[in-house]
């Protein structure tokens, strides 16, 4: 639905109006009730203070980290005027509001977000904060006995409709073509006891994300605002099949489903708390207070003592949050849901090249679908060919590469397929899941030699993965480096030197084959030393380029890219173009070997020439340790530079 300008403004006025109405109403209620809620029914002040200092209360209010302030940025999450900074006053105000006589508002059909918001603000505190109410009833049983309970019809009806049986964390894998999706995403799926295990497409999902409007969502703005918490983040609901279409079919992302082992009681409390978070804004910060972090904070409410969100105070990479779930013993089982592209890749491995060629020709309408039924293959094999052909054609259409007559051809394929009664599904192969890959921070100790002068070095990279790192659990051909830096101590000169500080280095070198033709690209920027000047001063560089990566065999890839480079020092700058070719070998699915050559032409031509790179990586025992060898030769017009190093890498 398109939004019109000014709509948020009207909405804001409505919300503010209802907020003030309900606050006034609650206040007048309070003033009246303060007399009736005498000391006899309220717990002692001392007990209230103790309760306000528990982990459970902090989790319910989303006071994390230092515990001095709530992460909720929405005043309607608090019943006390300074509830976001004072846990005790919030607890007092909550007890008072919960004790008020029930309203028993009849059930109201809610069809829009504003309906939901205003309904919530008008309802009794017990219905706005059912998780707090539940917990406070356990904390203060004497008080609980004297409180009359509201029917909370809207909450109860919602809960009965959801009919939760289990909770699953859904993890769409990393997506290289969108910077904010490069680390993946997580959302929650609530599975119902009204459905069986293969009916999960109908399940209810809740997703925390930055709320965008037409005006504020273009690429650049999204970045700036996303980093600084400029977007309100809010939870929204949708059927799981919508997410599957979005992630599997439109973005070609694999999905991992981690079913949690929460008990019925814990699930109930989770649901109550999710209801409390309905339409509550938390400023969305891309690095730390993001979707994955938010899920952990909600799980902390469901199972007190878990504190799964601890330790994520400055960054929350989705794969790391999944590791936290495992470490806290929260995961029951995991399932793999391949993307459209992965499914095709899996099927392609099991078909003969003849079958693949026929399928390809059918998709491109070079052979008619009915001809497949006339081939000498068995009915089952024919079915497999038609299945692959349809799936591939659907992939092409979703990629916007629509062959001539695709609509009729796709229907024709299915018509022919429906004439074959045999089953045709191919067995599924499950890759290694993301949380089993190497951890996301990396440090290394190395020994090397630079033009015959030896050195030792220490390097650190806070995130995430490069082309030589073992790719188990990571997206093929993706490299994402942030703040990679290396310090060297040169033994002869007895000097410590920062060798490089890469701000960001991202590239995607997904391989092309008969069926898939992605484009390879790379972008990087940071400080590095260039050797054409004596003492190699630091320069600031920006580099970017594009090209292709071709799959030669399942273990060999060859890349060819055209790259541009600009670098600057205090007194000068230079810009140039290069062509780069790289061959990557995957040895026994463990070690990697990379050989690269590039040729450069610069405006100031003394830097023209060749660069040669050799890299080898061997994981040791676990994905979190590796041995790496690097060799780099610069053979340029006015200088020749050679360095090699042997490093031990540790991921943590």
């Amino acid at each position, binding site marked *: 639905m398109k939004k019109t300008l000014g709509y948020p403004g009207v909405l804001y006025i409505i919300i503010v109006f209802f907020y003030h109405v309900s606050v006034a109403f609650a206040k007048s209620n309070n003033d009246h009730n303060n007399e009736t809620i005498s000391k006899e029914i309220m717990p002692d002040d001392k007990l209230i203070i103790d309760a306000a200092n528990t982990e459970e209360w902090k989790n319910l209010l989303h006071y994390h980290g230092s515990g001095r302030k709530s992460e909720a940025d929405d005043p309607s999450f608090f019943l006390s005027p300074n509830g976001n900074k004072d846990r005790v006053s919030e607890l007092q105000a909550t007890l008072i509001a919960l004790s008020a006589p029930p309203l028993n508002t009849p059930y109201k059909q809610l069809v829009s977000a504003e309906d939901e918001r205003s309904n919530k603000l008008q309802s009794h505190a017990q219905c706005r904060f059912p998780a707090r109410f539940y917990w406070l009833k356990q904390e203060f049983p004497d008080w609980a006995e004297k409180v009359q309970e509201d029917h909370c019809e809207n909450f109860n009806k919602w809960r009965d409709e959801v009919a939760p049986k289990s909770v699953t964390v859904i993890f769409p894998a990393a997506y290289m073509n969108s910077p904010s999706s490069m680390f993946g995403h997580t959302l929650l799926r609530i599975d119902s006891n009204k459905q069986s295990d293969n009916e999960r497409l109908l399940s209810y999902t809740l997703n925390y994300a930055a709320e965008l409007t037409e005006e504020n969502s273009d690429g650049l703005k999204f970045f700036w605002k996303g*980093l600084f918490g400029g977007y309100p983040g809010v939870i929204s609901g949708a059927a799981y*099949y919508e997410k599957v279409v979005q992630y599997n079919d*439109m973005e070609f992302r694999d999905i991992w489903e981690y079913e949690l082992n929460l008990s019925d009681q814990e699930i109930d409390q989770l649901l109550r708390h999710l209801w409390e978070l309905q339409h509550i804004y938390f400023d969305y910060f891309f690095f730390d207070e993001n979707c994955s972090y938010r899920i952990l904070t909600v799980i902390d409410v469901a199972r007190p003592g878990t504190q799964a969100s601890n330790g994520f105070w400055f960054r929350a990479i989705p794969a790391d949050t999944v590791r936290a779930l495992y470490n806290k013993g929260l995961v029951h089982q995991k399932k793999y849901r391949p993307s459209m592209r992965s499914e095709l890749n899996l099927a392609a491995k099991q078909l003969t090249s003849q079958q693949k060629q026929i399928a390809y020709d059918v998709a491109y309408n070079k052979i008619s679908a009915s001809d497949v039924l006339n081939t000498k293959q068995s009915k089952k094999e024919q079915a497999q060919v038609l299945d692959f052909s349809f799936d591939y054609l659907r992939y092409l259409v979703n990629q916007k590469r629509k062959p001539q007559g695709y609509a009729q051809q796709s229907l024709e394929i299915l018509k022919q397929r429906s004439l074959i009664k045999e089953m045709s599904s191919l067995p599924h192969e499950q890759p290694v899941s993301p949380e089993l890959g190497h951890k996301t921070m990396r440090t290394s100790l190395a020994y090397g030699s630079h033009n015959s002068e030896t050195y030792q070095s220490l390097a650190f990279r806070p995130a995430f993965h490069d082309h030589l790192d073992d790719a188990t659990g990571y997206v093929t051909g993706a490299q994402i480096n942030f703040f990679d830096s290396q310090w060297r101590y040169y033994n002869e000169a007895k000097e410590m030197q920062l060798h490089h500080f890469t701000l960001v280095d991202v590239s995607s070198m997904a391989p092309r084959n008969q069926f898939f033709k992605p484009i390879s690209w790379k972008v990087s920027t940071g400080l590095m030393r260039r050797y054409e000047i004596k003492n190699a001063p630091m320069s600031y560089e920006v580099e970017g380029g594009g090209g292709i990566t071709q799959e030669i065999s399942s273990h060999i890839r060859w890349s060819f890219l055209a790259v541009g480079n600009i670098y600057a020092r205090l007194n000068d700058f230079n810009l140039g173009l290069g062509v780069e070719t790289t061959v990557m070998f995957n040895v026994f699915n463990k070690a990697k070997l990379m050989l690269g050559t590039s040729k450069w032409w610069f405006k100031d031509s003394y830097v023209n020439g060749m660069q040669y790179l050799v890299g080898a990586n061997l994981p040791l025992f676990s994905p979190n340790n590796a041995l790496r060898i690097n060799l780099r030769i610069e053979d340029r017009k006015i200088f020749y530079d050679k360095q090699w190093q042997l490093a031990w890498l540790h991921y943590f």
Partner: protein
Amino acid sequence: MKKLVLSITLFALSSVVFAASDSGCGVGTMIFEGKEGVAPNVLAVTTNGTLGNQTFAMSTGTLGCDNSMSNGFWAVNQYMDANMDKVARDMSRGQGESIDNLAALFYIKEQHRPEFFRVMQENFALIFPNSDVTRKEVVDSLLAVMESSPILEQYAIRS
């Protein structure tokens, strides 16, 4: 400071290719109807954002934008909007997650599901007669086919 430095570098990066995949209306029907859908902001899909004013309860979603109902449950219509090509595919194969979930929307009991799959596969050409067929027409034909089966008739409820 970290954030300032990072945002500067990402500023340089943000000209990087953004996948322009359409989150348009009836995207599930693209393979049949052969026309582009109206596209809500594409960036919302690819950048883990949501367009404002999404409901908390299971909503009509960003994918279905034809709100007129044909016969059949609202939930069936919404499901078919997003999944028509996958439903067609599974129907032609006589099996698959997409028609299993469709059967669940009709509240078809487990023991009657094989019949549902068999009847759908047999009548595939009736339900999907040509590539211009709309979701409304498909759901109507589906219900008609169900009504013609003595076992499935009881599930063919038109709302």
